[in-house]
């Protein structure tokens, strides 16, 4: 596990933020506080007395509540059922759902939430589900509320609302611990900030006495980071890159994007889709008439709150999901009847969201994974036989070119860190010189250095003349890379912005389903 000598002081009645890169141990530390994980060593004092939490039950009893990054809600149950689960009101031995609904409504009202206690959780928006989580903790009398990356899935509007909720709780005398890697947001709301790096707490500062760039430097460990140790090239994260870009939270820690002319691409159209319709895994319509155009030499961002059809759109474009309706042209052929093999043959590259499920075979070696999909063509094959030498050489070239650590084609892919695995996938897909590249959440869970590299490669692909469709839930990523952005809401396009008109607020409004307010 990922904690090494971590320490933290939580002062009652304040909003403490814990920041750090992915894998720095933030979530682990919180899960220890909440009694879910058990530390190998160390002590834990509450009001000066040592305590030991054997399970969350103990933590809850001591007034600690936690809102997990991946919501801990039972989707098939109602709001009230989720909130009272484990401490259900009863009448003559039977569940008293009416009382449960009343209680939950009362708790929600007391803290200013609008929630229908009888609504099934899987019909709620992500923002509302989060409120259910918060109410769940408050209903159990939480005095200390831990929120793990609460804004990762929210629109800017919802994030603002959450900030107010957190400040409101602190104003009522409760304590809030906010885990985040969005530094700007953290500084806007927190009283104090603790910084974690590789399982340790490396600093605690007052929010009013620090800056985004100072925090970013602490997070990545300014200069002290051994490149070989973490697999991240030192150049991507030096202090010079970090200072002076303090505009947009996590993106502030990225190397500055080359400033590009706002001129729209006039390259040939690689994808023209009209009125696409498709059904999601849950059997409900996921795409309900999506039209979009992608030209060679541009990056088209697809923004939206999770679960609004982005994933299904990417699957349609790569032949993985059947169309129910609509038509289009993709690289000179019809979009209807597209299969993964056809898509590949026409020059579609795909970096899927879940690489372990869809892009690679983790138990196979890196070179085998690089050959996957092109294993019948040179240099990976000669006639019916595997070309071991050709495969090795090409893989070595790619590993060096993409700075993958360890630079060894023969290790199992699962021995690589997530960032390096993703670099292998991107390297393989771009090496096939796609004319249309479909990428979904390309940098989810990667550390700052790897994020920068993947972004750089996407820009390279665009410069080479590929059309890129990038689905991302990270609005900052969409803003940083896209030449144009389509916003999806409930399977429809609710906004289409060229780069010069990109506005985070307006984008957020559209992500929540608002139609254009002006012509």
């Amino acid at each position, binding site marked *: *596990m990922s904690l090494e000598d971590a320490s933290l002081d939580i002062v009652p009645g304040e909003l403490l933020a814990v920041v750090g890169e992915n894998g720095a141990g933030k979530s682990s530390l919180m899960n220890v506080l*909440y*009694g*879910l*994980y058990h530390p190998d060593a160390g002590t834990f004092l509450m009001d000066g007395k040592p305590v030991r939490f054997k*399970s*969350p*039950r*103990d*933590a*809850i009893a001591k007034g600690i509540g*936690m809102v*997990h990054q*991946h919501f*801990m*809600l*039972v*989707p*098939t*149950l109602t709001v009230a*059922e*989720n909130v009272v*689960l*484990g401490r*259900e009101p*009863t009448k003559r*031995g*039977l*569940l008293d759902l009416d009382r449960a609904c009343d209680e939950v409504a009362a708790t929600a009202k007391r803290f200013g939430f609008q929630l229908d206690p009888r609504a099934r959780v899987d019909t709620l928006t992500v923002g509302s589900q989060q409120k259910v989580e918060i109410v769940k903790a408050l209903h159990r009398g939480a005095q200390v509320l831990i929120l793990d990356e609460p804004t990762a899935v929210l629109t800017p509007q919802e994030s603002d609302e959450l900030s107010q909720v957190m400040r409101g709780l602190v104003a009522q005398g409760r304590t809030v611990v906010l885990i985040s890697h969005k530094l700007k947001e953290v500084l806007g709301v927190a009283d104090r900030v603790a910084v974690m790096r590789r399982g340790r707490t490396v600093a605690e500062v007052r929010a009013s006495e620090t800056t985004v760039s100072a925090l970013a430097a602490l997070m990545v460990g300014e200069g002290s980071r051994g490149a070989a140790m973490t697999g991240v090239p030192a150049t991507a994260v030096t202090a010079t890159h970090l200072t002076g870009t303090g505009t947009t939270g996590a993106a502030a820690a990225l190397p500055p994007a080359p400033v590009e002319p706002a001129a729209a691409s006039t390259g040939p159209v690689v994808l023209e889709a009209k009125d696409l319709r498709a059904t999601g895994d849950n*059997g409900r319509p996921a795409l309900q008439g999506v039209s979009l155009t992608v030209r060679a030499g541009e990056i088209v961002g697809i923004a939206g709150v999770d679960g609004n059809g982005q994933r299904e759109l990417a699957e349609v474009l790569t032949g993985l999901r059947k169309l129910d309706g609509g038509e289009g042209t993709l690289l000179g052929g019809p979009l209807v009847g597209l299969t993964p093999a056809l898509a590949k043959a026409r020059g579609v590259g795909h970096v899927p969201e879940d690489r372990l499920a869809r892009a690679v075979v983790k138990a196979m070696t890196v070179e085998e994974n690089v050959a996957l999909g092109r294993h019948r063509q040179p240099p990976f094959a000669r006639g019916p036989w595997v070309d071991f030498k050709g495969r090795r050489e090409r893989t070595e070239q790619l590993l060096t070119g993409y700075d993958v650590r360890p630079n060894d084609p023969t290790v199992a892919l699962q021995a690589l860190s997530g960032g390096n695995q993703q670099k292998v996938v991107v390297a393989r897909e771009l090496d096939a010189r796609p004319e249309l590249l479909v990428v979904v959440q390309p940098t989810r869970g990667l550390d700052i250095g790897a994020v920068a590299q993947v972004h750089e490669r996407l820009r390279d692909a665009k410069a080479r003349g590929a059309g890129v469709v990038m689905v991302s839930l990270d609005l900052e990523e969409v803003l940083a890379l896209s030449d144009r952005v389509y916003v999806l809401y409930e399977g429809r396009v609710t906004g289409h912005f060229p780069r010069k008109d990109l506005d985070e607020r307006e984008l957020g409004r559209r992500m929540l389903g608002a139609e254009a307010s002006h012509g």
Partner: protein
Amino acid sequence: MLEVLHSLLFSTLDAAPALVFAALGAMLSERAGVVSVGVEGMMRTGAFCAAVAALVMPTPLAVGVGMAAGAGIAAVHGFLSIRWRSDQVVSGMALNLVAMAGGTYLLESFFGPNGTPSITQLSRWNIPGLSQVPLLGALSGHAAPTYLALTLPFLFHLLLSRTPLGLRLRAVGDKPHAVATLGLSVPALRWGAVLGGGMMAGLGGAVLSTTVLDRFEQHTPSGLGFMALAAMVFGRWTPLGAFAAALFFAAGNALRIGLASSAPWLLDLVPQGFLLALPYLLTLLVLALQGQRGHAPAALGIPFEQESR
């Protein structure tokens, strides 16, 4: 005509309890997220133990022994799938094979290949007055399990939908991590469901050898456990749905027996084997028509581990 319907209904109600109990047991375990393909083996264990116990004690007590035996062998499944997080389908199938082979071995070494000696069946109850009413009269003259099978599904429904325990069981089958973060014990809930399910399957088996038959036979329960699984799926993992499906399958079984005895000429047209296979073909057909497993608990078959999300 009325007479045929009456006898069909009567034999359906006679055959249904074993299926109903096993289907409810399987459903209980699966709603909590633990796959229950081992239900055939649990039934066989229950049937054998009840038949042997009935040789030395009153039959109603022997049925209790069968239930305990079902829970006992379900505990093996519990250890494998909850404690050791092994693959639940493989563990269940292993259980079936052990029960198959173990039952045959014990039967042949102690009683010979023709089954255990015959025992006193559970007594049948005649409901005065009712037996004269057309059709409804088919409700009279059954042993206790039939009447239990007509009430238990409603109690299970109440348990699942209207009690705190039921809410927790449903939650643990759909999202165990949510249950764990509330400080409830996922293993305890699942253990309870698996043991309860084993008890119900054992009861189903015991009913087979103490009412439908009067002994344990070589092939008991001859696939009834799998049919109970099908009833659970067809009934969309709900007590009342599984109940209806079990009745439907039992009717198919009764129809087979009824057809063979009331219309012997049928045997000239259709091979006997086909008639024997009818209930099972019905099961396959129903499952094929139902299609996807859209109604299964979301976390079904996934071992619970705290440190994974």
